[in-house]
């Protein structure tokens, strides 16, 4: 029982990160109907910007402190939002009325470009990610939980709720959902569709940046290709929940994180990745709309 609970917490903590990344995939899919493969590289850039921020400006981004850690996450989110909007502006906007396949291939190109530029700039060897936050072990009955896990879960939960609020209750959020339904009709309402798409990229990329920092707190090694696997997993999570569906992405992320953690803790630990992708294949075969795809028509 104890081990079970411990694993659930580990799983939720990993799943929360998948959920943060998955939201970016699903939101961009909602408004532009394509998979932004460069999304996982924004995640990687998020981790690296935190890494360099504390290295270059140690007096501003103080490691091992709560305010310092919060400031790092906030700065990284802003930087990644900007990066996402620049990628959209330079790579995807010129292709707005071109076939979706062109955009998809461009996304793969952007991803390769960022990864290789990062390798050139940061080097290929993994580097140790600093301890942004003070770590304590919290004892809860027979459970011992690292404070990092609590932080990861807490920050992710806060961001999910904030996102839900933006999408549901704000004007730009309603506009995002309108654009996801139909660009031209949204334009007929006076909505600047390009602006809404740019905002969507910014929002998704900020979450990916936060995901990058949180991931590095749990797995403290940064390298230029670190985004690929979590990115693919998050993509699986988005499809599992129903691509284009925001609550679906969150649910898919959590489920996948928990399943993975349990597989890792079993005799079949070497199959962890295989099982994640087996889930993708199964969901595409038997429920291509995803878990929440049909129940909820809501798309962003």
């Amino acid at each position: 029982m104890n081990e079970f609970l411990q694993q659930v917490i580990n799983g939720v903590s990993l799943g929360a990160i998948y959920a943060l990344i998955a939201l970016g995939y699903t939101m961009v899919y909602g408004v532009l109907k394509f998979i932004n493969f460069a999304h996982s590289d924004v995640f990687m850039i998020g981790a690296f910007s935190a890494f360099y921020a504390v290295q270059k400006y140690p007096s501003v981004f103080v490691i091992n402190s709560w305010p310092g850690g919060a400031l790092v996450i906030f700065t990284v989110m802003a930087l990644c939002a900007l990066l996402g909007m620049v990628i959209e502006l330079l790579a995807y906007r010129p292709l707005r009325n071109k076939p979706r396949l062109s955009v998809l291939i461009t996304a793969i190109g952007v991803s390769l470009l960022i990864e290789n530029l990062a390798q050139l700039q940061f080097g290929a060897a993994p580097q140790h990610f600093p301890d942004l936050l003070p770590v304590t072990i919290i004892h809860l009955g027979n459970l011992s939980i690292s404070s990092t896990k609590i932080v990861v879960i807490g920050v992710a939960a806060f961001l999910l709720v904030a996102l839900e609020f933006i999408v549901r209750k704000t004007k730009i959020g309603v506009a995002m959902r309108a654009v996801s339904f139909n660009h031209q009709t949204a334009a007929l309402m006076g909505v600047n569709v390009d602006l809404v798409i740019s905002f969507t990229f910014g929002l998704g990329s900020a979450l990916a940046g936060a995901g990058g920092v949180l991931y590095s707190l749990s797995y403290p090694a940064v390298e230029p290709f670190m985004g690929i696997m979590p990115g693919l997993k998050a993509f699986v999570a988005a499809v599992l929940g129903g691509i284009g569906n925001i609550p679906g992405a969150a649910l898919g992320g959590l489920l996948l994180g928990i399943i993975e953690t349990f597989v890792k803790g079993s005799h079949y630990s070497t199959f962890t990745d295989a099982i994640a992708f087996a889930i993708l294949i199964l969901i595409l075969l038997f429920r291509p709309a995803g878990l929440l795809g049909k129940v909820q028509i809501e798309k962003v």
Partner: protein
Amino acid sequence: MIKPLLEVQNLTVKYGAITALHNVDIRVEEGEIVSLIGANGAGKTTLLRTISGLLTPKTGSVSFFGTSIVGVSAHKIVRGGISHIPEGRMVFANLTVDENLQMGGYLLSDKRVFAAERDFVFSIFPRLRERMTQSAGTLSGGEQQMLAIGRALMSKPRFLMLDEPSLGIAPILVRSIFEKIVEINKMHGLTILLVEQNANMALEISSRGYVLETGRVILTAPSSSLRNDPKVRSAYLGG
């Protein structure tokens, strides 16, 4: 001379190599209901989409109160007072009725103006108030058309373009929708350009009409004479 509300001159629109509109001239005066009739593929929808900025013409001009709006993007044209209700209603099925109206009033920044405008829409279509929290995708065809019109009215337009409001709606509702269109025109002074396959109905409520055939205006006259024109009768009014 008073400038017409809308003046389309020499408009040619192409989809790739296919010409959808050939040198079309249309004029709408303030306060009128003008109908645009013609068969499928005659270019009626293309004309509306060009006026609202969704399409860019090859040549020709579109002026609204004497100002050229060719090349202005669609979301800015709405700001000028043109509201276009697209074919098939296109209500945001994934949003609630209220959120649809919010989108219609996207350009209204003042909350009180928005509330007043919404009350105005509810006074025309009381049904929408009852359905406020319902997802628009679950409305009936007639209710969706009411929502589409209400949503278009939210931007406080001076000129309303309706594309096939009778499409896919129960015949009994069609008449009531048309009565609402007349009400909006007569009581609230909105100028209306009406595209319809249901030519009988359209000519009944409009003052003038244009007949479009394969991308050209082949006839324009007061609606009453169009209704009595033998050629129009046999082609569009079922004999």
